């Protein structure tokens, strides 16, 4: 045991650090529930901005929803937008400062419900911005009500017997929808519940920022995430449930790269 302690002392030294919290996240503790995917997405976006060295050239738009306080956690310039209007605000900022990197960070209630029109038109116009769309299938912040993205048969606080698609309509696949628009350049769907998916998401997010230099169109990244409080599960259970149900309906993978739709065989 003593030898082991000696070894730990040798390992835990500054020169041996291989992973640490990025300095672009503030010291404020995240306001999210334990196990929430928001934290991982925040961290990965900030890691990429740090790696690309564009901290002073990036402007983020924070949404309405659980992640409304994103501006408290991300140590970059942020602008708060009205519910669903983040792509419109991002359009304005990008047109005033075409050289800045602009991204919006939105949940599914924000992007797929109240902000559908802004999202679709920003995508259709092909604004050179990046949209991060966190899809957890319900309105997490307000108490787990049904959202447009709620799966068929999924329980939420307003659909306690499961979503009945005959009565309440079908869940919407925003990512497939915007991929068909000519203005989008890079459209993908990712997840962040395991280390493998986090690595893949990081690659996709890096591409979204690099694409802004090319000025060819909009990058749209959906992240299928969990909401363990809203789903009334433990974080681990929620991730398993997400893998079995959410990822079956919202399969992860690239949908459009370099402006070309990827044909599924």
């Amino acid at each position, binding site marked *: 045991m003593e030898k082991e302690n000696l070894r730990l002392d040798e390992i835990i030294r500054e020169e041996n650090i291989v992973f640490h919290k990025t300095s672009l996240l503030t010291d404020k503790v995240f306001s999210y529930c334990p196990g929430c995917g928001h934290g991982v997405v925040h961290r990965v976006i900030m890691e990429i901005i740090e790696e690309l060295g564009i901290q002073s050239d990036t402007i983020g738009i924070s949404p309405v929803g659980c992640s409304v306080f994103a501006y408290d956690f991300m140590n970059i310039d942020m602008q708060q937008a009205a519910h669903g209007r983040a792509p419109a605000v991002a359009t304005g900022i990008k047109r005033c400062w075409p050289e800045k990197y602009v991204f919006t960070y939105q949940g599914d209630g924000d992007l797929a419900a109240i902000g559908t029109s802004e999202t679709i038109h920003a995508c259709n116009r092909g604004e050179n911005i990046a949209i991060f769309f966190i899809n957890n299938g319900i309105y997490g912040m307000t108490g787990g009500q049904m959202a447009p993205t709620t799966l068929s048969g999924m329980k939420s606080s307003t659909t306690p017997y499961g979503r009945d698609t005959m009565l309440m309509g079908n869940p919407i696949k925003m990512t497939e929808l915007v991929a068909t628009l000519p203005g989008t350049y890079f459209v993908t769907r990712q997840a962040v519940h395991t280390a493998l998916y986090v690595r893949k998401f990081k690659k996709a997010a890096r591409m979204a920022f690099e694409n802004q230099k090319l000025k060819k169109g909009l990058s749209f990244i959906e992240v299928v995430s969990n909401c363990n409080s809203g789903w009334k599960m433990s974080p*681990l259970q929620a991730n398993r449930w997400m893998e079995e149900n959410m990822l079956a309906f919202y399969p992860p993978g690239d949908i459009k790269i370099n402006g070309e739709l990827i044909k599924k065989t």
Partner: protein
Amino acid sequence: MAKIKGAIVIDVERCKGCELCMDSCPTDVIRMEKKVNGKGYHYAYMENPENCTGCINCALVCPDAVITVYRKKFED
């Protein structure tokens, strides 16, 4: 033979005890402490530090960015 050893340091007060790191660890290093931190969460700690390889899987999935990972190569 050279051996790669790792170690993690957890920011105890920021940890929310979601157990995702415990699930993601391929060498079964992490457990949740019986004690709680200032917020009342059971925080993560290294139960089997000798198995840690410093693969950073736990730090990648950590939603609160509380894990710092160290890795060192030992010649013996």
